[in-house]
């Protein structure tokens, strides 16, 4: 979820829909949860800083059902189109993750970095690094500061790959333009909780894949477009290209992106309180878009009819769907609750992932 297109947002809207489900909650089904994990884990463990999403895009391709015909546009977005006719509905989740790009190489071989996306730099200081260079991944360390110990925020970060000299670093293929992350893993926690850096927005990517796998194509009465977008974290750039290409054709767009939750011991409970494990969230208001209330009501009715748990709330951040608004396309953003956003410790509940996939499927088939 982008911090770039920030506007002021606030107000307490989050509430839970306590309606009794019409059918059993399949999102609670252990098989569905296991399925969600199988799709999500490799996506989380793929690396793709904004502008270098190739490995993630290829992972999505590999996970798609065999029948899905995927195409990559000039921006790098991945598209799957199914069904025919109006109204055209778009679902979009972003491929990229926050990280760094090498800006320069010093004489001592250390790499100067510039951030890609918004995050607390302190979370990366004095940590292992992976430089995604021309010749593959090169390990190194993000250097600790040597002064200014009374401040949380470090000075601009650098990476040491042990090269010792500029020429040696360049010979490793880690020159300007290479992207930098930290090594990461998907880790299952207690119950149905899980952690891994870049849950934002790999959960969205996974939910689109899962929805496609279960979609009843024969039941589709209109065209549905699934887009895995690029460069969301640095300004919704991939979505802007997709929105321009589609123009006024779509009726609705569903940005499938994180609902940053205040369900955390460190957050104020003024807004964004969507507990983990209680289902996806209609992101009715954020810093980039407002969903018309009638559309929120329709989504709620759909979820209720399908027995899918749904929360409604407001949080901070922007979403890809907002780029479609200028073409008259209504953005009905949907998220799932996530703690500790843009940190190495992003934390989710797999029940929400399974339910989110079901909601996407329902919105494609029946709305």
């Amino acid at each position: 979820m982008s911090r770039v297109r920030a506007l002021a947002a606030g107000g307490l809207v989050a509430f839970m829909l306590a309606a009794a489900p019409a059918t059993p909650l399949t999102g609670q089904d252990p098989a569905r949860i296991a399925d969600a994990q199988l799709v999500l884990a490799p996506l989380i463990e793929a690396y793709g800083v904004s502008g270098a999403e190739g490995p993630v895009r290829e992972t999505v391709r590999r996970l798609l059902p065999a029948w899905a015909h995927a195409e990559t546009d000039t921006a790098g977005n991945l598209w799957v189109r199914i069904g025919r006719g109006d109204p055209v509905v778009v679902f979009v989740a972003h491929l990229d993750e926050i990280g760094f790009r090498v800006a320069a190489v010093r004489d001592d071989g250390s790499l100067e970095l510039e951030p890609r996306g918004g995050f607390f730099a302190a979370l990366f200081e004095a940590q292992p690094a992976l430089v995604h260079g021309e010749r593959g991944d090169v390990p190194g360390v993000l250097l600790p500061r040597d002064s200014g110990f009374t401040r949380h925020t470090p000075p601009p970060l650098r990476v040491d790959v042990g090269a010792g000299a500029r020429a040696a670093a360049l010979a490793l293929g880690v020159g300007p333009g290479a992207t930098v992350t930290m090594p990461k893993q998907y880790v299952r926690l207690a119950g149905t909780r899980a952690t891994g850096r870049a849950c934002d927005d790999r959960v969205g990517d996974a939910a689109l894949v899962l929805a496609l796998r279960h979609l009843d194509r024969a039941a589709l009465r209109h065209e549905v477009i699934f887009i895995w977008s690029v460069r969301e974290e640095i300004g919704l750039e991939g979505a802007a290209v997709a929105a321009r290409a589609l123009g006024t054709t779509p009726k609705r767009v569903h940005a499938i992106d994180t609902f940053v939750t205040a369900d955390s011991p460190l957050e104020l409970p003024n807004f964004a309180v969507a507990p983990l494990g209680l289902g996806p969230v209609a992101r009715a208001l954020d810093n980039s878009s407002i969903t018309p209330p009638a559309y929120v009501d329709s989504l709620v009715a759909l979820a209720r009819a399908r027995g899918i748990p749904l929360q409604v709330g407001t949080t901070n951040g922007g979403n890809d769907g907002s780029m479609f608004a200028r073409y008259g396309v209504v953005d009905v953003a949907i998220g799932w609750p996530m703690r500790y956003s843009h940190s190495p410790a992003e934390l989710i509940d797999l029940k929400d992932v399974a339910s989110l996939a079901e909601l996407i499927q329902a919105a494609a088939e029946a709305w």
Partner: protein
Amino acid sequence: MRSTSGSADPSRRCRVVAATALLWLAAAAATRLQAQTSVAALALRFGAMTAVTGLEQAMTDSLLALLPGAARDRVGNVTLTLGRGAPRRLAACPLDEVGYVVGAVTPEGYLLLRRVGTHVPYPLFDQQLEGHRVTVFGTRGPVPGVVAVKSVHLTRGRSTPGAIDPVFALDNAYVDVGATAAAGARALGIDVLAPVALTKQPLLYGDRLLAVRGGGRRAACAALAAAALTQPRVRGTVVVAFTVQSLYAQDGAVASVQALLGPFEETKIVTLPARYPDTAVETVALREAEALERQLVAWLEGR
């Protein structure tokens, strides 16, 4: 025409083949064992272990398994006596590290922490916990968790430019293991006093540089263990000790080895220099660890 060269006896040929295979297997096993007990392999292995000061038993169990003849004393130090007679000398390596224990479990299932170990030269030691993975060593085995951090999105509009920028305080370290209530955390074998540490993920980079928290100590201990495993011809008696609680109570552990197994005419504390000490990327050069092993073998043999 029959050939007269070589053996025509099939059973003899089988015996030769079998003996050759055995020799090859023995050589391969020895090579594998040597590889597993090389300084580099041991440094990686020790580097991945956690031994919060005063709570080092898992690591000392591993050392006891590695070093035939080693014993654990009443304090918890692992000692191995080599040779006999005079002079009596001691080579000691502290293996413990600054870490944490669970101080409390909240009703919501979060764990709060108390630091263990008094020597913390890196001012941002606790800040390294924020937003990172930790391992909680519960009674039912290691439990993964993360330390809570504010979501960057939710800080928007809540601070002003130039506002104070305080470092992370340990009092804000809420460990989230995925439990939703205190009972859920306890069901995982977690309660007050369970050791907690940043999850160790040793990283090799550059020209055989090893980065891991506590890498200097662990590589030094690896050099000492590797030296002991070479079966040196020790001059007199040498007690090789891997000491515990060195970061507590004024390094009482070495003193306790001296009290229990001494007196010693000479004591050598084994250390290695490290870059970025007390950070998650404390870095040692494996080449220096290998040089240290050679020096230690010479010292053990009295050369």
